[in-house]
């Protein structure tokens, strides 16, 4: 019994693993072509995990607990991020069922792999050792590669999966190389020990500091690949476009949370001693990502590809928060900055879910809604869905009454507080440029005539209700951002401001 109580914080992971295995077996006996029972079971598993996570947050009360010889960390930040990840996966399931069914892609493996990917994310989110972080990352990536390739009859999907796999393996190699250097310098894999050892090493001699910085370069490269930052962004457009929209929805949402957690654990948790170095690297990555992401997105005619470039730009924006936490060794504004970055990530996940959700709902059997022309005159055919898309696009562009505005505002104010005025101004300029292609979608929906021949009309049903809630939540967060912001700040406060 004592063992059970001691290991309580790992309950969500255990539940999810057991649930995924049960689902795998259960699905073998599924008679129904639409697999309603399997989907319901998956949602039930997610609900149980959410309940367990909430319970643990409540029991812990803001304390951070270390388990399994300090390789597992249960703290406030991990709890909040996990809850958002459950929500994202659950919404992804709801949006994509009909789409997959129409294309004959609805198989049990989709569900199983999705749940295992979520497990990988959770392992990453609450990793406190480089070993578990890496294993979680591999678990997540392997599931995603397989999910992309699951559409076997499509040459584009296979090509995307191949590219993703090769580049992903390369990035894992870079990350491992960085980890091995840092392990060589500090002699430990546990993140909190590394923080302490690195601080003394960096102060001690310049040669060991050099080794740490070398390792850091590789770590940041691997991280940038997973977040999809320029110049490690090449895979994002191809994978987003090549994968079926349901899988793109999965890749574009919850893994970003895990990547954010990974950045926090590695850089803020593990190597605060080198914050001067990694802040510079992140600044370069952020400016490049915002520039290339926003400028290239203008030229795209494919909506999925456009959203892919917009992801790159958004992740660059999020970095503004990560890089402005520590100013000249002073950590006073750290909570605000990291809280703003976390808020941005969560809002981005909501926006991305909604945008791909609209695309999924507009697609039917034999009709793929993925080009800009496909949404022409959507207002005449389906005003409510057009309105939701309007909210999403405004939010992505950062127009005031939506959540995207507040997220951008929080991140920018963190950057200004850190004295990064030039970068903040650059970010504003690029987000203005970016507003063009978001508003173009709105213009196409409201002011253009529907294209001949194609008629995208949204589906009815539960997914539509959920999508409405998703879109309206962005408005709600935009008008009343305090609650979510407070949650993010508290999570960072409890987890990192000791």
């Amino acid at each position, binding site marked *: 019994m004592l063992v059970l109580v001691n290991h309580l914080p*790992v309950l969500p992971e255990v539940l999810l*693993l057991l649930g995924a295995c049960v689902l*795998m077996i259960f699905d073998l006996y599924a008679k129904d072509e639409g697999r309603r029972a399997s989907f319901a079971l998956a949602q039930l598993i997610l609900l149980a995990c959410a309940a367990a996570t909430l319970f643990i947050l409540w029991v812990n009360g803001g304390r951070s607990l270390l*388990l*399994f*010889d300090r*390789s*597992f960390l249960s703290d406030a930040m991990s709890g909040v991020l996990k809850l958002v990840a459950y929500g994202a996966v659950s919404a992804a399931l709801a949006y994509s069922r009909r789409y997959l069914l129409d294309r004959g892609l609805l*198989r049990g*493996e989709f569900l*199983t*792999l999705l749940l*295992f990917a979520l*497990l990988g994310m959770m*392992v990453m989110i609450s990793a406190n*050792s480089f*070993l*578990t972080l890496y*294993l*979680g990352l*591999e*678990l997540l990536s*392997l*599931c995603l*590669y*397989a999910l992309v*390739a*699951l559409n*076997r009859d499509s040459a584009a999907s296979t090509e995307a999966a191949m590219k993703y796999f090769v580049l992903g393996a390369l990035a894992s190699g870079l990350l491992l190389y960085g980890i091995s250097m840092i392990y060589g310098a500090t002699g430990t894999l546990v993140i909190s020990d590394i923080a302490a050892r690195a601080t003394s090493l960096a102060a001690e001699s310049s040669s060991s500091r050099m080794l740490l910085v070398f390792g850091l370069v590789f770590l940041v490269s691997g991280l940038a690949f997973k977040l999809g930052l320029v110049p490690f962004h090449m895979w994002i457009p191809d994978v987003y476009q090549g994968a079926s929209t349901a899988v793109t929805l999965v890749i574009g949402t919850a893994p970003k949370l895990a990547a954010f957690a990974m950045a926090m654990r590695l850089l803020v948790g593990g190597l605060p001693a080198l914050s001067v170095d990694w802040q510079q690297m992140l600044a370069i990555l952020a400016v490049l990502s915002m520039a290339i992401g926003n400028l290239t997105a203008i030229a795209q005619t494919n909506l999925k590809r456009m959203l892919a470039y917009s992801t790159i730009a958004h992740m660059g924006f999020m970095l503004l928060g990560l890089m402005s936490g520590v100013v000249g060794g002073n950590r006073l504004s750290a909570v605000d900055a990291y809280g703003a970055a976390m808020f941005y990530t969560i809002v981005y996940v909501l926006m991305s879910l909604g945008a791909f959700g609209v695309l999924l709902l507009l697609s039917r059997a034999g009709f793929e809604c993925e080009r800009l022309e496909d949404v022409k005159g959507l207002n005449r055919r389906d005003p409510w869905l057009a309105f939701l898309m309007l909210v999403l696009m405004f939010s992505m562009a950062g127009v005031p009454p939506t959540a995207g505005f507040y997220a951008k505002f929080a991140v920018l104010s963190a950057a200004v507080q850190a004295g990064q005025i030039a970068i903040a101004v650059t970010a504003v300029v690029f987000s203005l440029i970016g507003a063009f292609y978001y508003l173009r979608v709105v213009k196409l929906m409201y002011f253009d005539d529907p294209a001949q021949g194609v008629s995208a009309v949204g589906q009815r049903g539960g997914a539509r209700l959920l999508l409405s809630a998703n879109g309206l939540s962005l408005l709600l967060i935009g008008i009343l951002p305090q609650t979510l912001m407070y949650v993010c700040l508290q999570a960072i406060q409890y987890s990192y401001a000791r």
Partner: protein
Amino acid sequence: MLLVAALRVITARNPVHAALYLVLAFFNASGLWLLLRAEFLAITLVLVYVGAVMVLFLFVVMMLDINLEQLREGFWQNLPLAVVVGGVMAFEMVAVLAGRYFGSATSTHAVPAGYSNTRALGRVLYTQYVYAFEIAAVILLVAIIAAIALTLRRRKDTKGQDPARQVAVRREDRVRMVSMPSEKE
């Protein structure tokens, strides 16, 4: 022995012989591990590589009818590059090993009697690293699921039996009564 076996792997004309020489090379390498008192690595090397990987490899070699002469063409063309790469690797190994190995006396700390590194490995694997161990197991499970999901394909032209349908067969399905007019001489 290891060197000879490894050389024969690439020079043997018969691919089955080459594979068998590779098995011999693995056995020799595991012998080296044993001499270094790393008996766990020795056992795994034999079990995993000889027992599983090489058997699979042999199957593939035997199943596929490889045209050897075609493969051997251009074997010597890459020699200059191979010599350069090999030379660099040998130089690096010498540079790394020479200073430490030949310079200082062999100062491996004494191993207490009855010490088993298999037991020690098992102990940390199931205590300190149990979480990572479990995740690795899940990764393997995912690999199996993904591999099956991506390759298992119900082909329409596969000739297979379905026992359930065989049992449920009825007479009408198999026997057709044909009334033929009787022929007269």
